[in-house]
């Protein structure tokens, strides 16, 4: 019987009441007295030298407060990068300066060149049009392989070339991998593209800067997944504002998907300009601006090779990837193709030898950074595609080949430096076979063929790594931040609690699921608990939400803080009950003395803590408030198996998804309904990448898919009903809740299933097609069939 509260209950999302009734408080809802508006003049040229910027006419336009250009930021810091990768030769990556407004050169379409602050958004925009910008156009660097050729135009004149780093992992294994390929009975190789994506959260980015002259305090309201990280990066590295004079608020945020992790120029600009103009300054991105200023995702070009012995055991894996960084290094960009990608290349398989080479490349395009999954989808896609191709080449069942090579004993140390704590890959595959009704596939294929359609079935596995940690390890890997999480639990006198978490909820439902955990621990109603997040003024220093880390890391911090609360409350209860502390038990919101009928209610204990008339003041302090910081000892490793069935119209190349099944292992589950919703959203985004979304540039660095007229987002009628299961549960062994995280799984696991299915369909019609690059749009599939 399903629970009606606490851990494991499908409690309805309490935040949805305000979201669905228009009562949310998003950044654009924040309007301050005397507020001015900024409009950014953005480069419409991908690469060029700025000859002159004439702002005289603009400055005299109605309502204009001030016009800013790059020269106004001399002496101010530049946008920092949060991760320094060391390459295979022991050299640190090349790291160009990333100015708030362009300095000397423009390096991508959309780069802000000047900014007008005015009384109204329309006046700011009018004046921006009056700025005369003279740019000497230079050849644009767009293709990554061209960018690395000798004599290629340089994106950054002060760097040696366009190569950010040349990373090898594990470099010491390289020769052994080469040898294994020489000895292989069979080698399967595949070249593929992991297509560039635009994140497109429903809410565009917004920033409001405010400055209080009387106290010299700055406040930034921003659409961020991690306000403390923004406060640290912007305060310490860009504007030189100490944290006690800088508050960052990320209120309700309408989706992030990674693109709202990063510190952007617009945030620093609004904070800086509010002080310079002595007025609040607001920026609201248009959707058009979002396409050319939000960090993009993915954009890898990869060659992968898999070596097998005569018994079809995987013996070695070798990959070479070109990863597009865009024109500048966004906050976590260097980590995505390296530590979030190379470490996942073992997948679910016991391949003993792996070598990963990644060349990160600067181009005249929008910066690329983490997008839902971040490195792990890229790893999963290439691995699951090459395994599928190998099965087809060898004429063996793709599921059987996977099962034969599954890791079955845990903990398992991979050859790519991580140790999986738990998992049951046969278990999720068993579940998938049951959900997917594979035995009925032949009949469904026959039915499709009767209707003139091809039908294909694609299966894949995935493994991901969430809650990247511990901090001392990631520090060695180049992270310039810690990756712990924090929580303060404040119990009020009448027994209600407020949990102030360093995690940030921007659609994940933390306000509901976090409350369920605390309710379960104390044995009280969820509605007695409020979850507060998103404001550096009232939450402890936290690292925010991304990488499916919140329940595993933020939830663990909350558990630790709640444990401290319970321990102290037991001391108070033992005083009130005149019993030994060791005999006090907490159950269903009451403290009792073991083996007796003596008890005291939760609310009586909390009241005693704040009205300490009958209270052991000599032993413990009044009050009931505790903070914990939790730094995990390892990543968590969710895993699963996905299946997709497609129909292909051979006349048009149009692919339709007919069935989709996902069997996941997320360890223990707090709220099954929320987990299901997260998986649904992830699969929708994964199918979007696989079939529809194509962020494309032309040779001049102009973004071709710069609006929804050309950039295809997945819509409800592009998707079938999903069949989702997460009953396979191997709890994480190293965090207190045994949870693994579920936010990114759907986006990681689904693209290879779709492509595997389409290849299966085409081969069923005798087409010699071994791969089609995403997105599998009708024209591409038709061309592959008729190529």
């Amino acid at each position: 019987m399903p629970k009606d509260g606490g851990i494991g209950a499908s409690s309805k999302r309490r935040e949805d009441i305000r979201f669905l009734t228009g009562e949310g408080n998003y950044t654009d809802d924040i309007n301050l007295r005397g507020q001015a508006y900024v409009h950014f003049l953005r480069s419409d040229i991908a690469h060029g030298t700025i000859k002159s910027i004439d702002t005289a006419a603009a400055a005299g336009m109605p309502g204009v407060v001030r016009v800013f250009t790059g020269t106004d930021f001399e002496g101010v810091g530049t946008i920092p990068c949060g991760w320094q990768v060391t390459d295979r030769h022991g050299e640190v990556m090349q790291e160009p300066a990333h100015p708030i407004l362009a300095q000397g050169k423009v390096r991508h379409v959309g780069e802000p060149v000047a900014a007008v602050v005015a009384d109204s958004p329309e006046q700011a925009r009018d004046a921006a049009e009056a700025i005369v910008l003279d740019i000497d156009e230079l050849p644009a660097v767009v293709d990554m392989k061209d960018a690395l050729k000798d004599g290629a135009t340089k994106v950054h004149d002060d760097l040696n070339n366009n190569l950010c780093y040349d990373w090898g992992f594990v470099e010491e294994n390289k020769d052994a991998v080469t040898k294994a390929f020489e000895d292989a009975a069979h080698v399967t190789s595949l070249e593929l593209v992991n297509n560039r994506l635009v994140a497109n959260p429903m809410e565009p980015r917004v920033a409001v800067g405010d400055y209080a002259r009387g106290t010299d305090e700055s406040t930034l309201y921003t659409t961020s997944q991690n306000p403390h990280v923004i406060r640290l990066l912007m305060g310490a590295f860009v504007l030189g504002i100490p944290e006690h004079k800088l508050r960052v608020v990320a209120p309700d945020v309408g989706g992030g998907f990674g693109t709202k992790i990063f510190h952007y120029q617009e945030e620093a600009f609004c904070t800086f300009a509010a002080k310079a103009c002595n007025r609040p300054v607001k920026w609201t991105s248009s959707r058009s601006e979002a396409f050319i200023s939000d960090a993009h995702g993915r954009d890898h070009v990869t060659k992968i090779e898999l070596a097998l012995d005569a018994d079809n055991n995987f013996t070695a894996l070798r990959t070479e990837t070109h990863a597009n960084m865009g024109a500048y290094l966004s906050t976590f960009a260097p980590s995505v193709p390296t530590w979030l990608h190379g470490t996942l290349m073992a997948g679910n398989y016991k391949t003993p030898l792996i070598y990963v080479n990644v060349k990160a490349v600067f181009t005249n395009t929008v910066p690329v950074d983490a997008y839902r999954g971040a490195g792990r989808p890229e790893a999963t896609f290439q691995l699951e595609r090459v395994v599928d191709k190998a099965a087809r080449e060898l004429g063996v069942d793709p599921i059987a080949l996977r099962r034969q090579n599954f890791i079955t004993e845990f903990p398992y140390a991979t050859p790519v430096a991580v140790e999986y704590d738990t998992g049951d890959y046969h278990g999720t595959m068993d579940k998938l076979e049951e959900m997917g009704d594979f035995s009925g596939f032949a009949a469904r294929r026959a039915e499709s063929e009767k209707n003139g359609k091809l039908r294909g079935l694609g299966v894949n596995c995935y493994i991901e790594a969430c809650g990247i940690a511990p901090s001392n390890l990631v520090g060695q890997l180049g992270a310039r931040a810690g990756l712990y999480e924090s929580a303060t639990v404040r119990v009020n006198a009448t027994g209600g609690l407020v949990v102030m978490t360093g995690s940030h909820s921007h659609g994940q439902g933390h306000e509901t699921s976090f409350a369920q955990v605390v309710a379960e621990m104390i044995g009280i109603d969820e509605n007695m608990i409020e979850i507060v997040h998103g404001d550096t003024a009232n939450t402890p220093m936290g690292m925010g939400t991304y990488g499916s880390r919140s329940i595993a890391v933020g939830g663990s911090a909350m558990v630790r803080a709640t444990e401290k609360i319970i321990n102290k409350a037991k001391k108070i209860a033992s005083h009130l009950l005149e019993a030994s502390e060791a005999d006090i038990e907490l159950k269903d919101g009451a403290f009792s003395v073991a083996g007796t009928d003596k008890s005291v209610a939760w609310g009586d204990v909390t009241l005693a803590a704040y009205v300490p008339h009958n209270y052991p003041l000599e032993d413990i302090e009044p009050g009931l408030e505790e903070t914990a910081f939790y730094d995990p000892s390892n990543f968590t490793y969710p895993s699963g198996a996905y299946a997709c069935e497609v129909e292909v119209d051979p006349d048009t190349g149009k692919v339709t998804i007919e069935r989709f099944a996902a069997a996941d292992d997320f360890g223990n589950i707090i709220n099954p309904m929320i987990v299901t919703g997260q998986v649904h959203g992830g699969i929708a985004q994964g199918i979007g990448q696989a079939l529809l979304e194509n962020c494309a540039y032309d040779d001049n660095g102009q973004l071709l898919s710069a609006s929804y007229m050309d950039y295809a987002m997945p819509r409800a009628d592009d998707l079938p009903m999903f069949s989702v299961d997460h009953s396979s549960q191997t709890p994480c062994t190293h965090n207190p809740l045994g949870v693994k995280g579920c936010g990114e799984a759907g986006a990681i696991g689904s693209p290879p299933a779709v492509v595997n299915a389409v290849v299966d369909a085409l081969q069923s019609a005798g087409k010699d097609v071994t791969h089609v690059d995403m997105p599998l749009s009708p024209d591409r599939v038709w061309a592959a069939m008729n190529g």
Partner: protein
Amino acid sequence: MYNFDVVRPSRIADAVKELSDSTESQPLGGGQTLIPTLKQRLASPEKLVSVAGIDEMQGVCKGDDGSVCIGGATTHATVAAEAGNYPALAATASHIGDPAVRNRGTIGGSLANNDPSACYPAAALASGATIKTNTREIAADDYFQGMFTTALDEGEIITEVRFPVPEKANYQKFVQPASRFALVGVFVAKYADGVRVAITGASNDGVFRWTEAEAALSSNFSADAIDGLSLSGDDMISDLHGTGDYRAHLCGVMTKRAVAAAV
């Protein structure tokens, strides 16, 4: 947007007068193309002359010759609901854009804009429709003059469109995945004196008639009749969503499907 004035006359004559004064003015139908264009600041008329308030340009009626007559300011949703005498036309209207577009966008606005991927131009051209303006009547064959180009003069307003009702007709749209405009849309109409086939979405010259297919279908109205016929992709639109050759191929596929589905 830049600032502009809006007037909403209630008679065609007043609208014509508003459009002919010295201000730089532009007629406004449902605004489904013009308003986004203004928001992008890609156009800057001083005055918009809305035709939405002109009663005599509203609605669907039956002409003396049995044709379906549609007022120039009639929305797609109204056509979908009321053009039952011409089922293929009503069905075409019911699949333009989304509900918001269909409840604002008008037939006159669509035909005056002549977007190379719009649906109505194919319906009008395949039906041999007559485009009636405040000054004259223009045959569809003379009206469409290349993408975004028509026979309309400055300040001329489409007041009505008359569609002769065919024996059989069907429109098949293969949508561009992002915009869901027609990547290729084929309207086939069979009349007593022959078959007309008009194709939208494909050509760099906008909507066009596939005369070879018309000839073949006029003698044998079956999907097989166009086996072996093909169009060249050379002058077809080639973009992110498909090459000219792909579009040319789809023209054949969609024509066959339209013939097979024609009722």
